């Protein structure tokens, strides 16, 4: 295969290796044999609540990365000049935009809450079945409460 790179490769190949994470491609022993069906329908598999929150963490994370350039753009514009500041204020004042802002803030907060949960799990806190289910629910409750508080602040 094109991308299998051995250990004594040169710097360019090493860079590729880092970039693609292909350094540990296992031998084909573990490739699925024959053509067989695989059952993997995510709508039929019942994910535990922790699994759901974990997916949510991932989705919110990707959304936040996509929102990053927008945030930097607004920051730059607003700091540039009085006209820029006024322009950003005008952009952000209609209520549909405020709703979007609220959703963005909630995206950040959900990622933050589930992130704190993951950090605690990494510190071996709450790593058992019932605590982890409870903490997963707790992140959703916290986001819902934040929605109420922030909605009042941002939309009012």
């Amino acid at each position, binding site marked *: 295969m094109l991308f299998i790179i051995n250990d004594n490769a040169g710097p360019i190949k090493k860079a590729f290796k880092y*970039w693609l994470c292909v350094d540990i491609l296992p031998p084909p022993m573990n490739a699925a044999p024959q053509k067989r069906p695989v059952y993997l329908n995510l709508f039929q598999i019942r994910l535990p609540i922790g699994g759901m929150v974990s997916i949510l963490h991932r989705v919110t994370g*990707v959304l936040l990365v996509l929102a*990053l350039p927008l945030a930097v753009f607004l920051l730059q514009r607003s700091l540039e000049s009085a006209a820029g500041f006024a322009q950003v204020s005008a952009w952000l004042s209609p209520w549909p935009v405020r709703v979007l802002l609220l959703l963005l803030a909630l995206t950040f907060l959900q990622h933050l809450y589930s992130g704190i949960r993951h950090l605690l799990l990494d510190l071996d806190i709450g790593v058992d079945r019932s605590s982890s289910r409870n903490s997963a629910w707790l992140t959703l409750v916290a986001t819902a409460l934040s929605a109420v508080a922030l909605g009042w602040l941002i939309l009012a």
Partner: protein
Amino acid sequence: MKIQPQYIGSTRRGLGEWFAQRVSAVVAAAFGLYFLVALCLAPPTDLETWRAWVLGGGMRLALGLFFAATLIHAWIGMRSVFLDYLKPMSLRLVVSTATGLGLAVIALWVAALLLGAV
């Protein structure tokens, strides 16, 4: 007798990335939360106070740290997503490169913003 790991490649990478992801998370979370709450409680009303707050010495440093942490966190996180879902190496190459370039542009942009606007 020493056991030879079969495909050791450039190991020692998993742990470093895992740890960096957590440290950057703490930095980004602390500042992000502070910034969000401050903005909500006291939205800036005019350019002067806004500039004074955001570009004040301590705040400028904090923003710099925040963006550094966020960009590292975003890079590791996005790569983790690609590693999980993108199987064809060509697709992974294109998407990884695009993400890397995108984040690098944001890094330069933020650096210019924080260092240039004296």
